[in-house]
């Protein structure tokens, strides 16, 4: 890792250096006729930042988020998580990071229908060998905080979209991670539920001090972020900082969207 990162290592959560991700077409040989999704991305995410990633469908937003979440691996380039080169880490170390330091919120909620809401929330804590008492207590606290305590004994399929997403947020926070990665968390929700979810995300960022990286293609949701990375065809078109109020940022995003 270079010196400039070292200086601010304490502040840095993620750093991408020339991140490339290619996919081989089905039936093709590796290296031949590849689809280049990410074409060398360079950016950093500081502690407590709320970063949005925006772009048209197919520009590589979700692919990028998967690589940042260490669910997928980059084809080339470096990704540093809190100063550690993720390529140097063993699979179980990546699993430990995903379990302890990262919380995931997905567009389709990704809850297990076989478990109750309470168990879904507790799952990362259980996988972290938390004691039964601690798991239950934390799940209840978290549910209380996000107003879903009354849903704890229900099954995921009995909940509305907004409720499901709040359950997913509770699950993402149960191990008190450093970073939250959200893949279009409002994409499957109506505007009212979407507002609740984005307010919750803002609250998590501001009050709990969590770093958030959120993929969205909704300019309104993007305007909640403190910074916005605009992707086009696998490259960063612009890295916008929020200066001024939300409305101003929203207008700026709308202008930039025309270039996408």
């Amino acid at each position, binding site marked *: 890792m270079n010196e400039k990162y070292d200086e601010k290592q304490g502040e840095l959560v993620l750093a991408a250096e020339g991140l490339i991700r290619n996919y081989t077409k089905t039936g093709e040989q590796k290296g031949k006729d590849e689809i280049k999704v990410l074409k060398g991305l360079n950016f950093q995410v500081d502690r407590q930042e709320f970063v949005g990633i925006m772009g048209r469908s197919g520009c590589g937003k979700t692919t990028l988020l998967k690589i940042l979440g260490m669910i997928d691996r980059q084809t080339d380039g470096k990704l540093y998580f809190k100063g550690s080169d993720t390529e140097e880490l*063993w699979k*179980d170390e990546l*699993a430990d990071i995903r379990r302890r330091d990262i919380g995931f919120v997905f567009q389709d909620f990704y809850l*297990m229908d076989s478990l109750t809401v309470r168990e879904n929330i507790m799952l990362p804590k*259980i996988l972290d*060998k938390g004691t039964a008492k601690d798991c239950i207590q934390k799940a209840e606290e978290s549910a209380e905080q996000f107003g879903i305590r009354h849903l704890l004994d229900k099954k995921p399929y009995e909940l509305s979209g907004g409720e499901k997403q709040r359950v997913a947020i509770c699950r993402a926070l149960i191990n008190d991670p450093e970073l939250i990665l959200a893949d279009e968390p409002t994409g499957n929700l109506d505007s009212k539920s979407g507002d609740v979810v984005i307010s919750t995300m803002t609250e998590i960022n501001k009050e709990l001090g969590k770093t958030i990286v959120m993929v969205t293609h909704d300019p309104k949701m993007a305007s909640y972020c403190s910074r916005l990375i605009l992707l086009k065809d696998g490259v960063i078109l612009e890295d916008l900082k929020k200066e001024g109020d939300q409305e101003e940022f929203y207008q700026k995003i709308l202008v930039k969207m025309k270039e996408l």
Partner: protein
Amino acid sequence: MKRGSKGSIVIIMTGLLTQIYYCYPWIRGGEHTYTGLTWLSAVFREGGAAELVAREFPLSQELGGNAGAFALQFTGIVLAVTIAQLLTVATILAVFSGRLFKLGSTIALVLGGACCMIIANPVAPDGVFIGNREILSDLPYIYPYFLVVAAGIFFLVLRAVEAWDEGTRRMHKDREERKAYRQERRRRLYFPGRYSRLYYQILWKDLKYRFKDMMFLFLSVWLSGLFLFLGFGIYQMFSGNYGEDGGLLGLGLVEIMRDFLVAIAFLGLFLIIAALSFYQKRKLAGSGLIKTLGIRKKTFFWSSLAELLGCFAAAYLCAAMVGTVLLFFLRNGFAAWMPEYENAGFVSFFVAGWSLVVLALVCFVAYLTCMELGKGYGSTDTRGAAVRWEKPVGRSAWVTVLISVAAGAACFAFYGQRRMGEKLLLVCGILLCVMLMIRSLWGIWLRMRQKRQEAFLPKLTKEFRIRCRFRTMIRYMSMLMFLNVFVMMVFSVKFISSQIADEPEALYPYDYVYLANSQDEAYFEALQQECEAEVLSFPMVRATTLDATEQPEEDYRVIVVQQGQNTGISESTYRELKKLAGEKPRDLMLDEAGEKIHVVYQQDQASKARPLDWYLCSSRPYVHIGQALMGHNYITREQTYPPREIVSEEREALTGAYRQGRYENLIVFSDTYFESVKDCWKTTDLLTGEPVSEEEAVPDVTIHEWPTRLMLVNVPEKYQERADEILGEFRKSHAFDEAFDPLVKSAYISADARHQRETERQMETIVNGIVLLMLLAVEIFLLRMKMKMDLPELRRDYRFFEVFGMSSAERIRLMKREVSRYVWVPLILAGVISLVLTGTVFGLRMYEIKDVQNYLKYGILLWGGYILAQAVNLKLMQRSLVRDLEGTKTGRNKK
């Protein structure tokens, strides 16, 4: 070099030992003896080498002008030896101080080489007939040569110690690195504590949620386990009856069960792969989430494995329990229906053990296959994997077609040869090739069709599921095709052939068959006098082949214990036997050397076509004239068991089908050849088959008179009891001839054989019937499992069609097609393959037109019944599917 290390001690010790060489007073002069050092000091003392050499070696003076050069040469050699000595000492001292003076030993070795060169070249010019050796005498001349040995040993030891030292250092470094890596791993992956009870509760809850999916896996393992258990059980029951005394020969039944077990192992494999891949696919979403949330790799692996092992173990236990009960009833049923079966073996740990081992193996292979199939999912996020399209075919589809056609044709060509003995593995090979060929061709067709959108789009609703689930579909269809071929060909042939085979009366034309020799005249006189027997006598020889077992040779050099014992007769005898059977003899093209033979397979239509000799599956059987040999030199095998060429063959019970083609076939030689070998027992070693001289030929010590007379005896019914007694006495006196194999006797009774064959056929009918019913049950289970597996996807797809306005009638038509595809395609393919293979079996077993006609009568009934059962099952499944997908809505529409 570390001071005091083992290596340094070895170097020092070797160095000190070499000093024995250096310090030896090897220069034996006329007046004194010297070591290297004392010689050199004497040179200094004398003021020059020439004087000293002249004094000590006076003969050198004869060199005249070269004497000075000789003195210098010799002193140079002494100097080299001394330098080498000093270098060795320096090396030892260096080692003492912890360093390695490698150059010292190298220079010493070079000096050794130089000494050899110098000493070997006399300085004397041509014409002077003395050389170094004459001047110096033996020891001082030879001694310098050994410098190269002494220095060489030291050099090698030094290098070896150095290499050893380096190796040890590296090993130590590697060990340190591994230790550091382990410590680092332990530190970085430190994850103390235990999972709470919640972890296990969650696993259990998730498992319960997927219980329906797991039931398919459970049922597939249960069904495979049950059939394996039953197969091994029945096999054990019957195999206890090997040999004539067991009440029932049972060889045919053992064979059936062996084929059944192969079939079940294959089908079980397909079945479990299908259920396991379905199960894993359904589990993907949940397991993907757990992986995303950061479960440790090992934890995940063990939890998944425990789940599968639990399912397999439970399924096997249930299978074993049900199997034990069924076998109990089966055994008692047999015993009640056929009292001969009181000797049937019990179900023991053999059954449980072997069925468990085979099932475990099948499950393991299925698991590995599914792991390989699941590798394509790649990323940890597996949400999309369950709905991902399956790749139809790769780039090498045409190559696969070519390879499978070639391999299939080869398998078919081999199957069509008698020497392969109707091997089931070849049928499996043919089916695998057909499967690969169909998969590749269908895939290519699909790819081409997709490119032509105008052709593909109108058929989209009919073919979209084939496109996205191509591999699963082909896997399933192949499995069903396998199953259909097992029903329509493999076991149909077994079942029907025992129905159409000649009546047992026709298989045994004479009441008694004796394989006698010149000592047995008294028995036949007694038969004629006491029993009014009609006795026919023909000359014969024992014609023994190398191998009567179907097992592949473990070591082809060793003699096989069960050799094929047949009856060798002359062409004239064959003609007479044919006339006696009321048939016209064939014209045989036999040679005088006995290389060309005609074979009469004495078996019925129900017995499979076997080769005369199983040895290495050769097309030329190795036939020895004489009884089975105890010892055998594989280098001279072709002299003791000369390979013969079968020029013609037929299936006919001329003397009696007592061993159904396995033994006692008739091998016909030309009259000339037969005459030349009929008395060769007198000059043949009974153990090794090697020639024995007349002096060494001692009866029953070095030679033995094997059966030389084929006696066919008919006795009026009233005397048969007495005839049986005479036969008993005859057999006692021929105990040696019967000692080679429990199935080969010296005399046979047709009444016993008839009864035995009748019982055997009844048993074959029952067992094959059970096997056919089992296979039908597996087929129905497979089809139903497939439908249940597809139901969630079908429900989603047909909801989509409904939403987009497809009419109910059209939807129902498509739904029915989804089911019927899995019935008719495998059935048609299997039908064609079965017809071709059944035709091949007709050829192999030499069926006559009337046999084929009889077979077809039964075949039409059996196939018809099977197809009808499939059609009924299809209708029921279609109805059930339509009800599942349309049922409630249809009801609503009706309202």
